[in-house]
C-alpha cells in the first residue's frame, strides 16, 4: 500500500503553534458564542466521531488491519459505561470512562485474535463477526440495558468531582477535554517504539517479522488501543451527544461511516485527517438535507429527497476516491505546499512548508 509514513515532525514548533491556536478557540471562544444547535448537533457528535476515527486510524491507517466492526466497539463502550455507572454507583465517572474503554479494548483484542492468521479481506470480513455478534447480544440479553425491552439506555448526568455537565456547552467542553487528552496520548504512543512497530507491520508484515517486530504483541496492541479509543468515543456518543441510545444505532452503516472518515477524507495514517474527515461527515449530510429541502422541498416529497441524497453521497464517495485515492487531506496538503513554496522559496529550516511536504 502506498501510504506515506506518518509525519514524524522535525518541526514541533509549527505543529504545536497551530494546535494551540485551535485549542484556544475551541475552549475560549466556541462554548461562549456557539448556539445550542451548533454545540449539540454538530460539535459534540463531531468530537465523538473524530475520536472513533483516531481509534480506527491506529488500527487501519497505522497498522494496516482493516476493520469493519468499529460500531460494535462504540456500542461496547457505551453499554459498558452505562452498566458500570448503574451497578457500581460509587465509581466516579472518569473511572467509568476508562474502565469502559478497557472493556472495549478486551473485546477488541478477542476479536483481533484472527488477525494473527488472516490478511486483507479475509480479516475485514471476520471483523464483521464482532459487528453482528455485539449488536445481537445487546438486543438479546436484557441485562446489558437493565431489562429495557428494546435495549435502550439513558445516559446519566455527567458529573466529575462535583461539577455537573448538563447544558450543551458544558457537554461540549467535557467531550473536548476527553478527546484532546486521548488524542495527545495516542500521538505520543504513535511516536514511540510501539508506533513504529505498527507502521512496520503495515508496510510489510514479513519484513517486520524478520527484523524482530513481535507480530503477536504489536497487532493485539493495535487492536486493544484502537478499541479502547473507539469505546471511549462510544461513551461520548451515548452520554454527551445522543443521551439515549439503542443497539440499532450502532449498526454496520455506522462502521462504514467511520471508515469513510479515515479513508475517503482523512487519509490513512493521519490523525489530523481524522478530525477534518469527522467534521466533513457530520456537517455534509446536514448541509445536503438543508440545501435539498430548500431547493426542491416544495417539488418533491421527503422520500425522493432521501433517495437523491443517497445517490449524491454515493457519487461523491466515488468522485473523491477517483480525485484523490489517498484521501482529500492529501489534495489539501498538496495545494498548501504549492502555495507556500511559491510564496516563501527560501524558507528557514523550520516552517509549515517543510512539514506539509512530508
Amino acid at each position, binding site marked *: *500500500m*502506498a501510504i506515506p509514513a506518518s509525519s514524524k515532525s522535525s518541526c514541533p514548533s509549527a505543529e504545536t503553534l497551530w494546535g494551540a491556536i485551535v485549542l484556544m478557540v475551541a475552549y475560549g471562544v466556541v462554548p461562549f458564542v456557539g448556539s445550542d444547535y451548533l454545540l449539540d448537533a454538530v460539535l459534540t457528535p463531531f468530537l465523538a466521531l473524530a475520536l472513533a476515527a483516531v481509534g480506527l486510524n491506529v488500527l*487501519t491507517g497505522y497498522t494496516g488491519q*482493516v476493520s469493519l466492526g468499529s460500531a460494535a466497539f462504540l456500542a461496547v463502550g457505551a453499554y459498558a459505561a452505562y452498566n458500570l455507572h448503574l451497578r457500581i454507583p460509587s465509581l466516579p465517572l472518569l473511572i467509568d470512562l476508562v474502565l469502559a474503554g478497557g472493556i472495549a479494548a478486551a473485546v477488541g483484542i478477542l476479536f483481533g485474535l*484472527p488477525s494473527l*492468521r*488472516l*490478511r*486483507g*479481506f*479475509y480479516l*475485514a*470480513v*471476520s471483523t*464483521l*463477526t464482532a459487528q*453482528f*455478534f455485539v*449488536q*445481537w447480544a445487546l*438486543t*438479546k440479553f436484557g441485562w446489558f440495558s437493565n431489562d429495557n425491552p428494546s435495549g435502550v439506555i439513558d445516559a446519566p448526568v455527567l458529573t466529575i468531582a462535583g461539577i455537573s455537565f448538563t447544558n450543551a456547552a458544558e457537554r461540549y467542553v467535557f467531550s473536548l477535554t476527553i478527546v484532546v487528552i486521548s488524542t495527545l496520548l495516542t500521538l505520543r504512543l504513535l511516536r514511540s517504539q510501539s508506533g513504529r512497530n505498527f507502521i512496520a507491520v503495515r508496510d*510489510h*508484515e*514479513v*519484513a517486520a517479522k*524478520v527484523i524482530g517486530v513481535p507480530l503477536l504483541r504489536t497487532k493485539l496492541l493495535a487492536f486493544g488501543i484502537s478499541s479502547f479509543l473507539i469505546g471511549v468515543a462510544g461513551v461520548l456518543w451515548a452520554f454527551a451527544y445522543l443521551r439515549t441510545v439503542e443497539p440499532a444505532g450502532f449498526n*454496520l452503516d455506522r462502521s*462504514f461511516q467511520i*471508515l*469513510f472518515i479515515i*479513508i*475517503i477524507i482523512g487519509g490513512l495514517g493521519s490523525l489530523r485527517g481524522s478530525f477534518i474527515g469527522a467534521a466533513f461527515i457530520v456537517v455534509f449530510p446536514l448541509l445536503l438535507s438543508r440545501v435539498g429541502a430548500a431547493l426542491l422541498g416544495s417539488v418533491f416529497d421527503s*422520500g*425522493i429527497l432521501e*433517495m*437523491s*441524497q*443517497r*445517490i449524491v*453521497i*454515493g*457519487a*461523491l*464517495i*466515488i468522485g473523491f*476516491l*477517483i480525485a484523490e*485515492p489517498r484521501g482529500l487531506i492529501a489534495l489539501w496538503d498538496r495545494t498548501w505546499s504549492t502555495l507556500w513554496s511559491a510564496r516563501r522559496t527560501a524558507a528557514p529550516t523550520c516552517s509549515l512548508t517543510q512539514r506539509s511536504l512530508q
Partner: protein
Amino acid sequence: MFDYQFFIEVLIGGLLSGVMYSLVAIGFVLIYKASGVLNFAQGAMLLFAALTFVSLVERGASLPAALVATLATMIVLGLAIERTVLRPLVNQPPITLFMATLGLSYVIEGAAQLLWGTQVHGLDIGISDTFEVAGVLISRFDLFAAAVAGSLVAVFALFFRYTRTGLSFRAVADDQFAALAVGLRLPRVWAAVWTVAGIVALVGGLLWGARLGVQFSLSLVVLKALPVLVLGGFDSILGAIVGGLVVGAIEKLAEVYVGPSFGGGIETWVAYVAALALLLIRPSGLFGKKLVERV
C-alpha cells in the same frame, strides 16, 4: 431419542437455501478473480435487477420482454460501472476499490428506488408447494433454485472453457501482467466480467425476490454472501458453491438445535463464527489461492 428424519429435513432445507447464497457469492467471485475488487455493490445490483423486472411486469410488459429488457439494463449497468468507476481507479489499493463499490451500492440502491419506488413488490414465479421423498419434506421452489444455480454454473464452465472471452478471463485471473503481455485487453475483459456479474445478479435477484419479496432488504443479501466467500475462498467458484452449501446447512442446523438455548436470532452471526473458525485453520478459505510472500 434423536429424530433423524427431522434432522435430514433441516439439513436438506439448509443445503438448498445455501444454494441461494452461492448464487450471490458467484457474482462476487467473478469480479474478484478478474480484477481483485470485492464488489460490495453486488447486493444493490441484485435489488436493481429484481426491482426493474418486477416494475416492468407490473407496467404491463410480458415476462420474456421484461426479462430481455432487464438483462439489457444489467449489461449496460455493468459496462457503465466498469467505465466510470473501476477504470479511473485501476491499480489502487484493494481497500480503496472496496470503498468505491460501497459508494456504488449507495448510488444503485438510491437510483433503483428513485426510479421504481420504495414499496414492496411480490414476485410469483409459480413454484411454491412442497413434496415428500421418503417422509422428508422438500420445497419445490428450493429445488428449482438449485437447478437454476446448477445450470448457471454449467454454462459458466462451458463459457470459460470454450469461448475466447472466457479463456481470456481465465488468463487475466491467473496473472494480470502476463495476460497484458500477451496482448489481452484488460478493460475489455473487465467489462465482460461486470456484464456477467450483472447477469448473475439478475438470476439471483429474481430467485431471492421470489422468496423474500422485492424490496430494499434484498440488497442486504450481500451480508449473507460474505461468510460464504470467506469460507470458500474469494477466488474460487467451486468454493462459492461449497461455501454456500456449508453456510446454509450450518445456519439452519444451528437455528434449530442451538438457537433456542440462546433465545433465537442467532442467524445474523452464526455463519460468520463458522467461517471464522474455519479460517483459523485455513486462512485462505477452503479453495482460495494460498498467499506467498517474499521479502
